[in-house]
């Protein structure tokens, strides 16, 4: 039942850190959904993204954790804060924050949650406690080899997607082309 780890890399207090980080993630998620001021939501989301980067580290994924911090918490959230500063939030803060069909939406989300609970209770044995040899010292190298080898085509499509997104964002946001 114990995870296979390399000698000298014994994880410390895994249980505590898991509950701490996932609790932080979920709490900041609650703050994102409930805060009235979008700036507070954005700051809570940054905290949640950082906590989730910690969870990735616990899952032996240091490269994804770094990408999460640099790209998500550093790049995308700056974009969000920039746009929040650009649009006028004074007026929208005085208005009703939740729409008219909030109860229906909430119930639909709860139904989805019940479905998740059902799946996880019924299919508990589908997720065995086994570790596929965590290769932490060459994780980044392995991901690079896969990105430029097996996933070359998907990588190129992703770059094309980013190009289209850049052009689309400029076309949308510019007043007069």
């Amino acid at each position, binding site marked *: *039942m114990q995870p296979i780890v390399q000698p000298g890399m014994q994880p410390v207090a895994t249980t505590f850190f898991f509950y701490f980080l996932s609790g932080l993630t979920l709490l900041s998620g609650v703050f994102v959904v409930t805060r009235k001021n979008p700036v507070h939501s954005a700051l809570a989301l940054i905290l949640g993204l950082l906590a989730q980067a910690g969870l990735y580290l616990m899952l032996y994924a240091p490269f994804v954790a770094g990408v999460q911090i640099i790209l998500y918490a550093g790049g995308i959230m700056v974009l969000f804060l920039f746009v929040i500063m650009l649009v006028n939030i004074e007026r929208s803060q005085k208005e009703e924050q939740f729409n008219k069909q909030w109860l229906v939406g909430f119930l639909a*989300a*709860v139904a989805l949650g019940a479905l998740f609970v059902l799946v996880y209770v019924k299919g508990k044995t589908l997720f065995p406690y086994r570790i596929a040899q965590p290769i932490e010292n060459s994780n980044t190298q392995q991901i690079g080899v896969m990105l430029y080898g097996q996933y070359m085509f998907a990588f190129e499509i992703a770059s094309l997607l980013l190009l289209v997104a*850049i052009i*689309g964002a400029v076309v949308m946001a510019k007043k007069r082309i």
Partner: protein
Amino acid sequence: MAPIGTLHYLVTAAALFILGVIGVLTRRNVVIILMSIELILNAVNLNLVAFSRLWGLHGQVFAIFVITDAAAEAAVGLGILIAFFRNKETVNVDEVDLLKW
């Protein structure tokens, strides 16, 4: 206490996903709806990375692609938001009804 297995991470990701769905379905502010979509994408990423511990590195590569998609989605979505705000002086989704008959 039980050792932390894959199921723990999956339950955390499911809770995060549901929080994101609640945010998308109930809020009126477009900025917060976009942030809730980021929450949903992050829940998916957590699932992918948790499974990559079981089945090899493919999940982590896929998580990077999902982050790329999130960046593209945020850029285009916020561009649309700026265009919309310029026209109607509001950020509420209820008032996005230009195409409604």
